[in-house]
């Protein structure tokens, strides 16, 4: 399997309001994260709000300029290059279908803009045909082309967002919480569409969401983030049934199962307290303040992200005890 995306030691720091003139403070949104995505696979990224999963996704398509580290696309370092040729290959679908479409542009222009920028259509007729084929691909039709975003429901808008990203024939799509703003009955429609598109077009996804059941359903492998760090990465069934990191374990046990009998028997691993501020993360292991297994070494040393078994990476001092 060839690696399509490779992220090496990615750091994304944002300057934060500092308490003194000389002491600059940074919010370490993503702190030393490395992983790769194989061609044709879906890598899921989960974590709670503020853990840096969206920032990671945006840094990969360079909507943020990484503070340090490198991003490789198909073997080539794209950390410091002109992105225009790569924008055709890497696209992103955003979380909020209400905010990510320009309300003053007709659907045909939203989808057509990408075609124009990359000069993918030789003439007007060709452009129109391309737009309509994109809309049909996502379950809309030619009638919808001249309407404006406000005329559509949330699910339909997300379809437009997906059509827009597909218009340039990409190989890789970052899906940033694409279903979390949608109603339950619509979520399944969009999830199935992502799967069908992947089968038909051979797409590679980075699927970011906070809902682990959705991520598990769609992904081949899953990465779990906590306070800017990747704490565990494994094949999705391995991760859900044989997780090693205490954070992943409690995350999985916290999901309320839509099944009353199982739910009554469910053993929850409760986490104490809240996520610490990313401006002032705990020393050593970031998770230690909420971890029931934390010992002295956790405060002193940051655990390394190591491969425990084939393809299963964990960053924890005590996962093998």
């Amino acid at each position: 399997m060839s690696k399509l995306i490779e992220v090496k030691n990615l750091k994304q720091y944002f300057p934060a309001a500092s308490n003194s003139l000389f002491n600059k403070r940074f919010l370490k949104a993503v702190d030393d994260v490395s992983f790769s995505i194989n061609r044709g696979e879906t890598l899921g990224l989960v974590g709670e709000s503020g853990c840096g999963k969206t920032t990671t996704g945006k840094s990969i398509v360079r909507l943020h300029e990484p503070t340090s580290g490198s991003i490789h696309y198909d073997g080539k370092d794209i950390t410091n290059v002109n992105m225009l040729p790569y924008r055709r290959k890497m696209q992103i679908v955003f979380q909020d279908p209400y905010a990510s479409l320009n309300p003053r542009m007709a659907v045909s222009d939203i989808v057509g803009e990408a075609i124009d920028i990359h000069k993918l259509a030789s003439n007007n007729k060709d452009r129109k045909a391309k737009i309509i084929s994109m809309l049909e691909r996502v379950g809309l039709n030619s009638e919808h082309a001249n309407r404006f975003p406000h005329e559509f429901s949330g699910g339909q808008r997300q379809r437009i967002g997906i059509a827009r990203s597909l218009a340039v024939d990409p190989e890789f799509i970052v899906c940033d919480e694409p279903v979390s703003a949608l109603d339950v009955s619509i979520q399944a429609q969009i999830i199935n569409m992502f799967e069908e598109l992947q089968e038909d077009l051979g797409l590679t996804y980075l699927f970011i969401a906070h809902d682990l059941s959705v991520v598990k359903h769609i992904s081949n492998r899953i990465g779990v983030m906590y306070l800017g760090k990747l704490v565990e990465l494994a094949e999705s069934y391995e991760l859900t049934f044989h997780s090693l990191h205490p954070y992943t374990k409690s995350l999985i046990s916290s999901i309320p199962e839509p099944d009353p009998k199982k739910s009554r028997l469910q053993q929850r691993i409760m986490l104490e307290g809240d996520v610490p501020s990313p401006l002032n993360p705990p020393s050593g292991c970031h998770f230690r303040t909420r971890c029931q297994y934390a010992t002295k070494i956790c405060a002193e040393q940051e655990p390394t992200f190591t491969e425990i078994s084939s393809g299963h990476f964990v960053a924890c001092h005590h996962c093998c005890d």
Partner: protein
Amino acid sequence: MSQNLVDIKNLKLSFFTAAGEVKALNDVSIQMKQGDVLGIVGESGSGKSVTAYSLMGLVPHPGKIIGGSIAFDGHYINEMSEKELRILRGNKLSIIFQDPMTSLNPVYTIGNQIEEVILLHATKSKKIASKRALDLLNLVGINEPRRRLKQYPHELSGGMRQRVMIAIALACEPKLLIADEPTTALDVTIQAQILELMGELRKKIGMSIIMITHDLGVVANMCEKIAVMYAGKIVEYGTADEIFYNPKHEYTKGLLLSIPKISATKHEKLIPIDGTPVDMLMPPKGCPFAPRCASCMKICLKEMPPYTDINEDHYSACWLLQKAAYDTITNGVAR
């Protein structure tokens, strides 16, 4: 005594907007006994929040109750004046809103906001009120409660704010707590904490809870009875086990099939419900779910189905059930 704590009968509520009348609630009836935990599930716009708000006497502006009655603990909410309602709200009847970020007043301290409720309903003594506020913060599991009392909402995290909201709601030990998507804005690990807390407090105080949510996992976890709403109508009502293991309405069945489960051991394709949610300005004539229903019949497009009783505690509004009942009767006669 078998008097119902909550008795909503044939409630009809419409919003009179510039674009036309929106029938937000269409013949909604709910009965609850003291101690019951009822879950109301539905998509956005299905009327689940409006049902709960109308029980609090909070009908948002262009909305008007056009029929039916709402009784709580022997009081008829829809006939009460604002003044009478105020005595009830926050006292016997409390609500937690969805968004803990916006439901606390940013310019008052946490302590101030909890004491306000107690001073209004329970006591005139500030000293007793502040002691009670401290106890409440302890009860909902906030660390360093003494310091928190003096803090402002912006100094607390989302999970903490929701705990404060719960403390305010519980200040006067209400008979009924309405929780409107109390955990939707929170992370899963925090959600688990809050749900656990609500379950514990329910046992301690013995209150009833109405849990409004779109998350089937949350209702499976918390509720004994479940009402499934679609387009302003309760389409199915039953015990949690009946709804999850013996669903009768096509919408309920569809919902259960369309959610991915964390415990699934192999990849199964989700079965989505086709189509889009109802446009409430132009609802279909018959059953509101008919345009999205795979087993839609002719009559479904013409007339609203009546409720069919499946058993004592389980009913649903679907023509298929009527047809099944009719078939058994006629076959029985033929034999």
